[in-house]
């Protein structure tokens, strides 16, 4: 049933993906962006300081970071729900950004000084590929543009040294105006454009999908934000959805996963509605090998997982029985 549904969402058929010759996508990470995890870590770049907090996620990120940085990527590509655009898909188009990011929602937790290098050439290639596929793409050329905190948190958690350039991609709001399915179909196209451009570029690229999973969250905050005794999943149904999604990832059944994502968006108010996960899965060619779940925990009630896909592990992987 899911495979039939998947075909309806514009998924490419299995086995028809172009093999990379040199360079290519060397990894993909579901890399959620709650500013709390940076706050919990206390990097020098972030002004507010904490006692601790959200360790399971932070330790998961550490393991993912170690794994993927060891593969010597040339670039991280990040698709962020917090750069929201109405007209098409936008790309950071300036070689360097320096500035201060203050989270408009959690300014008490996140006031981060950033220095970002951008792989503008690769961004332009993806934008061009996207346009050739009928998508609207734009390059953002203003150096005073403030990079969104979603991009910054995901990138910081994967590479706090910021010594690898990034490609920053906006999230197009079309699923909010039309339908989840239409939005996802666009993201799958954008993923294909991304893969083609990376292969043409010869870059060794790691993709970051800056999504949480279930996204119902508390509207009150403890006096001590890092008070972990107050942290739990917002609702059981959200947790069940998150586990179903992670189970499919661990089994390598990402086509089925893509097929149920629109339903997940509706039932768990999932942030995957913004499209980052669909984009990444599409760019990775809908992996049929198991993903590595580095960590899952909640942040103000939302479900957050750090999950990695490494194509090099594909040969050793089994698509069966990752979860009984």
């Amino acid at each position, binding site marked *: 049933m899911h495979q039939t549904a998947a075909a309806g969402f514009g998924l490419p058929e299995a086995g028809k993906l172009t093999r990379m010759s040199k360079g290519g996508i060397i990894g993909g990470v579901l890399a959620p962006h709650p500013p709390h995890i940076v706050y919990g870590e206390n990097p020098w770049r972030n002004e507010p300081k904490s006692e601790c907090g959200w360790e399971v996620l932070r330790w998961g990120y550490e393991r993912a970071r170690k794994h993927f940085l060891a593969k010597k990527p040339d670039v991280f590509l990040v698709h962020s729900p917090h750069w929201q*655009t109405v*007209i098409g898909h936008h790309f950071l188009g300036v070689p360097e950004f320096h500035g201060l990011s*203050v989270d*408009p929602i959690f300014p008490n937790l996140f*006031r981060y000084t950033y220095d970002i290098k951008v792989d503008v050439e690769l961004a332009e290639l993806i934008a061009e590929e996207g346009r050739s596929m009928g998508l609207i793409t734009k390059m*953002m050329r*203003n150096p005073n543009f403030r990079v969104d905190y979603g991009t910054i948190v995901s990138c910081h958690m994967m590479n706090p040294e910021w010594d690898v350039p990034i490609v920053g991609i906006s999230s197009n709001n079309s699923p909010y105006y039309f339908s989840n399915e239409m939005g996802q179909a666009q993201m799958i196209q954008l993923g294909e454009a991304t893969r083609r451009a990376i292969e043409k570029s010869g870059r060794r690229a790691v993709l970051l999908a800056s999504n949480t999973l279930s996204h119902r*969250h508390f*509207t009150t905050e403890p006096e001590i934000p890092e008070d972990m005794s107050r942290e739990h999943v917002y609702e059981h149904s959200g947790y069940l959805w998150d586990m179903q999604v992670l189970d499919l990832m661990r089994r390598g059944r990402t086509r089925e996963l893509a097929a149920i994502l629109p339903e997940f968006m509706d039932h768990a108010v999932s942030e995957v509605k913004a499209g980052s996960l669909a984009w990444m899965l599409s760019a990775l060619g809908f992996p049929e090998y198991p993903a590595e779940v580095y960590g899952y925990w909640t942040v103000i009630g939302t479900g957050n997982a750090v999950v990695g896909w490494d194509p090099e592990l594909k040969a050793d992987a089994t698509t069966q029985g990752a979860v009984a």
Partner: protein
Amino acid sequence: MIQKAYIVPGQPHPLLAPEKNAGWASLRRSYEAVGKEIERSGAELILLYSTQWFSVIGHLFQIDPKPKWTLVDQNWYALGEIPYEFRIEPEFGKLYARLCKEHGMQAATVAYHGFPIDTGTVVALKLLNPNNAIPASVVSCNIYAEREETRALGFAARAAIEAYGKKTIVVCVTNLSNRYEVADIDPAHDRISSQKDDEWNRKILEMFGEGRLEDVAQVARDFAREANADMNFKAIWWLGAVMGEHNKYDGKVWDYQPVWGTGNAIVELTPNDRKQMDWEKEFDEGPVPEFAAGGTGLESHNVLAEGPDVHRQSELSSQDDYGGAAPASSQTAAAAQPPQIIRSERAPKPVGPYPHARRVGDFLFLSGIGPRTPGTNEIPGLLRDGAGSVIGHDIDVQTRACIENVKTILEEAGSSLAKVLDVTVYLTDMQGDFARFNEVYAEYFGTIQPTRTTVGVDSLPTPIAVELKVIAAA
């Protein structure tokens, strides 16, 4: 204290690119004309609510006295940058936040260098208050707040304005229909993205033109559903509560134009207590009976924490139980009542930021009430010499005036002198006044027999000789 309210759009196009579209230019001219009116009005404060300042944890209040930055909009960066430096009134923001907390809401003030002030706020303040002639205060829009929470935020704003005592202009930054064109268009040919949205916008503007703010607030849910109104059009719930939830306004629609497919209007509402109402046009949504059926599906995301006032009765979930909201359909009529802070127009004005009384459960707690004359604030029973200097007082006159003021407040709160349970008396001349005070007191309370404590004090905030602190049954 509230002079006027305005509803304005928050798109940057009229500010940054008026030359590209006649409608954008028209909005710019209307915006500037309104700005001049505000500057001439003698207003001392602009209170602004913007649908583009999202918050999730309750509401945020800007209190940085001089926020400064260069805004590059995440969508419309190609139109250019907006450098800004605003003049913010921190004390009002603190007061507003404090009142929200007292009403059981999550509230936090914001004064961080580089805090990203939203495009809607920036555009509105740049065009309405270009010279920073009037200090402003800005409050966020909680994306999950439903009608009750948003009204509570509005009631708190009204209370803050009254307590602050400055002439205030209230500004709502919101689009009407909010369906953008999602592809590039020739700006010269910008139009409302659908005829249905346009018709709904015009229907809403007709009501605004007649000054029917409360009626618009009551159809906001329908408007949001049919025309994808900006942030469920919750800004109008807030504005209605700030302005008193009625239709007695003179309305004026300054402008209505499309911006990239969305509906953008500039509306002015001037309170007019003498307005003749056409009651056939009135209707009442009531205590949100369709809350569950027509809601957003996110009603459980209430932004109210457990509080001491009416919202405790509303069955909304408490701060300690994040996920345990009651079904929205169980909203009670009590929840639709304003916060139980009693402010009487018929009693002398408080001399500080406090109300005349508060109701908590079955009890009324009155602030210290003196003898000043309602309306004029004059102190009765003062004895003066030929030069006008105060040389004494008539405790008989002041005691009667004091008790009459208490009676007025109690009756306005639905209680009476007969329900007084406890009285604390403050006298500045115990030795000279106690006996006569006691006689007058007995005339009023002799048969009621509340408990009483009498205290001698050096002085009271104004040159009065007696003040009463009363607890009564509601």
